[in-house]
């Protein structure tokens, strides 16, 4: 075969690979994309109560190695944890190629006893790895709310998470199973290695400071943003809510999440 024909044939093969990839991509997107977190501006709401705090008491939160929940570097205290699906995802990457933006979270606590620590967990589209906000060192971000309500009884339904690098957590706010055989709405948070997955997601109160900061407040009603500074696709975004006291029966947390597009 002459040289020119071989070139044309090779170009046709490459074009066919791209065409087949787009066909597969379109088919998969139509079949599965609605189940993932959305990046539209629709408001998503979630509400939890004391019975959603299903994990604990424990001093650490999930990562490749246990990391602190409260302010500071070292795990301490006895915390009860819940994971809430925010239903919206931040979008990073090249702003010329994607509609990039962050997630604004408005919260309202009712009868909060002690301190609540709010952390962000994101799932990587492609291989299921997870990100969370950095807990110590340069680039630390977090959000802590203190309340003055009297503590309630110890939650007998809560059990500590097993340590590891892969955590299967129940999504709070979803319908509670009526018996142990019923399927539970769970997600797997997998951290591949130490020092990985800590610099993508951040919690900030100011979108100009995208890498976030540590905020400690007594406002039971407020807002913050979850920003993403990586270039991959975030498939799901979860808010870890941890409290360092057993909560009273009247405890509640209402969340509203919405996608906020970056200004260009």
């Amino acid at each position, binding site marked *: 075969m002459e040289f020119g024909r071989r*070139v044309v044939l090779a170009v046709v093969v490459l074009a066919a690979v791209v065409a087949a990839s787009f066909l597969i991509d379109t088919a998969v997107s139509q079949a599965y994309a609605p189940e993932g977190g959305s990046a539209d501006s629709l408001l998503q709401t979630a509400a939890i109560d004391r019975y959603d705090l299903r994990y604990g008491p424990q001093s650490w939160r999930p990562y490749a190695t246990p990391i602190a929940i409260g302010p500071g570097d070292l795990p301490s205290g006895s915390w009860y944890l819940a994971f809430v699906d925010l239903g919206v995802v931040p979008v990073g990457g090249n702003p010329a190629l994607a509609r990039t933006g962050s997630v604004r979270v408005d919260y309202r606590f009712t009868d909060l006893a002690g301190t609540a620590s709010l952390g962000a967990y994101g799932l990587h589209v492609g291989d299921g790895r997870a990100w969370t906000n950095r807990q110590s060192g340069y680039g630390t971000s977090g959000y802590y709310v203190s309340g003055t309500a009297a503590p309630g009884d110890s939650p007998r339904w809560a059990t500590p998470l097993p340590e590891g690098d892969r955590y299967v957590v129940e999504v709070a706010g979803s319908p509670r199973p009526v018996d142990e055989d019923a399927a539970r709405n769970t997600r797997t948070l997998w951290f591949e290695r130490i020092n990985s997955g800590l610099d993508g997601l951040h919690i900030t109160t100011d979108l100009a400071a995208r890498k976030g900061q540590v905020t400690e407040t007594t406002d039971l009603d407020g807002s913050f943003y979850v920003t993403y500074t990586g270039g991959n696709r975030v498939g799901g975004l979860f808010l870890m809510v941890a409290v360092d006291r057993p909560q009273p029966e009247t405890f509640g947390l209402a969340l509203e999440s919405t996608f906020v597009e970056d200004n260009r």
Partner: protein
Amino acid sequence: MKRPSYFSLYEIALLSLFGALVFVLRAAIVVPIHTPGSSGVFWVLPLVVGAALVRKPGAGTYAGLVSGLLASFFGIEPLHVFDIFKYTAMGITIDLVSIAFGYRLDNPLVGFIAGAAGNVVKMVVNYAVHLLLGVQGVFILLGIGFSSATHIIFGGIGGVIAALIVGRLYRAGVVHQDDVPDEG
């Protein structure tokens, strides 16, 4: 009588250095445009140049294997030992394209095809390894259309640059197209 080795000592040294260069470029240069396959601009360069200079079947495969071994031992990517497969696959593809076009890798069109094919095959092997390791197919396949296009474009750009370098080396007389340095 000792059987002569397929690659001469000179060729092995050259290809090992090119393989190491792939790893060094991968570790040292981050392309901050957040587009899949963009680092392929640098990855395919040493493999295409190596295959063009040695002009023997297996040259790209050897350099790809060296870079894969280095990448897996240093653990710079998430797949660790499985990284060997994608780097080697890239080398094998560049070898096959080189053979199909009679090692005319100084031609920018051939360079584009070699680089684009190498980079997109690397992507496919990467996805296949993820699937074998149990990652859900939907996670892998979402976005594969855009990803394959960018892998081809960036790999192709790297291949064109490699072809221009090879062409300049030929014209400058540093290497000769007809001289195969097969004696150690």
